[in-house]
């Protein structure tokens, strides 16, 4: 007899075959099926099948494993009427619970816009901002030397003004509650139009070249020009501009105020992104991550100090900065020229429009910057973007001279009153 130790193994108890490893297989097959059918019934069926075959345990990675079967054996308890043995249902109580839970509907993105408007002579120019959807639910569009208004409620079209063949519109922006419209022009003069009276109430001078960027905050209209200058116009004061700032070395093509924080972001063709505090004429931050022009700028409406920006053709990056800390939070190569962007008012998502070369509209999840959807419909660069006042729809303008309307976001759920609990 040798002194070898031969362990006695109860094969039937300790060597187990893990059916759990096949669970993933079934689930992945289920997900493939789900992709094909895109039906909730198929998904529910696959989950139910998985639950019935393998239970609700976490899946094991190996088919065979050594050790005790850790599945809990049903303890002998008092005989109750809701025990499995007495159940009339062919499925387990866990599966019944699963079926009782309300299913979250799968989000669907539109493949086609719900409305398309013709926009003859809409300029195919990256640096301009020719589209703005105001609080009064009226869309302002700059087409060559004319300003047009389109009412989203009635569909009525009005030509507000024609500046003449030599003076084209370069930017439009609604101010206040959507009763006044600021219009930047090739000549460098900004006109303020009162929509109710359809008359120009003011003309703001100060720029020597075209004004392609406009932003509004309380009573201040901020403008950025090709003359590399940012001007703050106090709309209450009868005189001309109030303050002038010059730090950009090339044309300013993006301006956005964060009204709650009192910070202004300015992007330029010099690839720089500056952040300003309203109390100071010197920039608070200078972000130099972009390697192309910065036109697409957006402040998060959900978190203070979160600034998203997109770079031009060479850069193609979507970046997130925290202006409270001055740090770069996230950066992602989108694969094409970022022309414009907007944050969703109802969800933590960013919509971007792209030019060279994908010409698409993209939706990104914040903060992961995971791509959620891509809408490819325009046949040229999607240069212009504006969001509806209710935050559900966006309108995109492109070099193909069309404006396309997309319903991307759901209504904001009504917050429950704190008084009723």
């Amino acid at each position: 007899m040798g002194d070898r130790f031969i362990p006695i193994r109860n094969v039937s108890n300790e060597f187990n075959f893990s059916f759990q490893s096949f669970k993933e297989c079934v689930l992945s097959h289920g997900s493939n099926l789900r992709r094909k059918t895109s039906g909730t019934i198929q998904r529910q069926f696959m989950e139910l099948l998985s639950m019935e075959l393998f239970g609700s345990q976490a899946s094991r990675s190996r088919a065979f494993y050594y050790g005790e079967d850790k599945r809990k054996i049903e303890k002998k308890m008092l005989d109750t009427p809701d025990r499995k043995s007495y159940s009339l249902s062919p499925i387990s109580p866990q599966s019944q619970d699963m079926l009782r839970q309300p299913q979250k509907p799968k989000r669907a993105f539109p493949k086609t816009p719900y409305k398309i408007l013709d926009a003859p002579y809409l300029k195919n120019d990256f640096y301009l901002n020719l589209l703005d959807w105001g609080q009064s639910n009226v869309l302002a569009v700059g087409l060559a030397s004319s300003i047009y208004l389109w009412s989203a409620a009635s569909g009525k079209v009005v030509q507000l003004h024609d500046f003449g063949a030599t003076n084209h519109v370069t930017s439009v922006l609604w101010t206040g509650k959507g009763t006044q419209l600021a219009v930047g022009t090739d000549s460098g003069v900004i006109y303020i139009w009162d929509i109710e009276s359809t008359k120009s109430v003011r003309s703001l001078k100060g720029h020597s070249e075209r004004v392609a960027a406009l932003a509004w905050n309380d009573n201040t209209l901020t403008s950025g020009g090709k003359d590399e200058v940012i001007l703050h116009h106090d709309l209450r004061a009868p005189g001309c501009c109030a303050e002038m700032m010059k730090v950009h070395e090339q044309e300013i093509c993006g301006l956005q105020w964060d009204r709650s924080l009192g910070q202004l972001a300015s992007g330029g063709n010099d690839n720089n992104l500056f952040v300003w505090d309203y109390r100071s004429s010197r920039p608070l931050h200078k972000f130099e991550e972009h390697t192309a022009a910065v036109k697409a700028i957006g402040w998060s409406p959900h978190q203070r100090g979160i600034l998203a920006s997109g770079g031009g053709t060479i850069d193609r990056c979507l970046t997130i900065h925290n202006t409270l800390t001055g740090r770069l939070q996230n950066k992602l190569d989108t694969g094409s020229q970022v022309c414009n962007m907007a944050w969703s008012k109802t969800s933590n998502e960013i919509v971007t429009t792209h030019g060279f070369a994908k010409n698409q509209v993209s939706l990104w999840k914040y903060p992961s910057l995971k791509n959620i959807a891509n809408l490819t419909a325009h046949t040229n660069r999607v240069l212009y973007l504006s969001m509806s006042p209710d935050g559900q729809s966006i309108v995109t303008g492109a070099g193909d001279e069309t404006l396309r309307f997309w319903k991307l976001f759901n209504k904001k759920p009504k917050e429950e009153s704190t008084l009723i609990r």
Partner: protein
Amino acid sequence: MVNTDNKENEPPNMEKAHMDSSNALYRVQRPLQRRPLQELSIELVKPSQTITVKKSKKSTNSSSYFAQLHAASGQNPPPSVHSSHKQPSKARSPNPLLSMR
């Protein structure tokens, strides 16, 4: 650093051609007289359309092309069209015993 005034409007060399819109789901129909902010209708592009075109192109390359031509012209196709690659069939004898040989 190359920084021209209009750099963002110049397509990069690699991507001068516009995006291929052949995979678009629809076509925008524009009227001859364009009016600003006029609503445009769309025409849905069925993927089956391209398949049928391909099929019809394939059929033109097949051997039955001449038969189709003759059918279209109303003339009877020559016998060689139908049995161009077959051996000429032998005339059968009415006597079954002879045909067995």
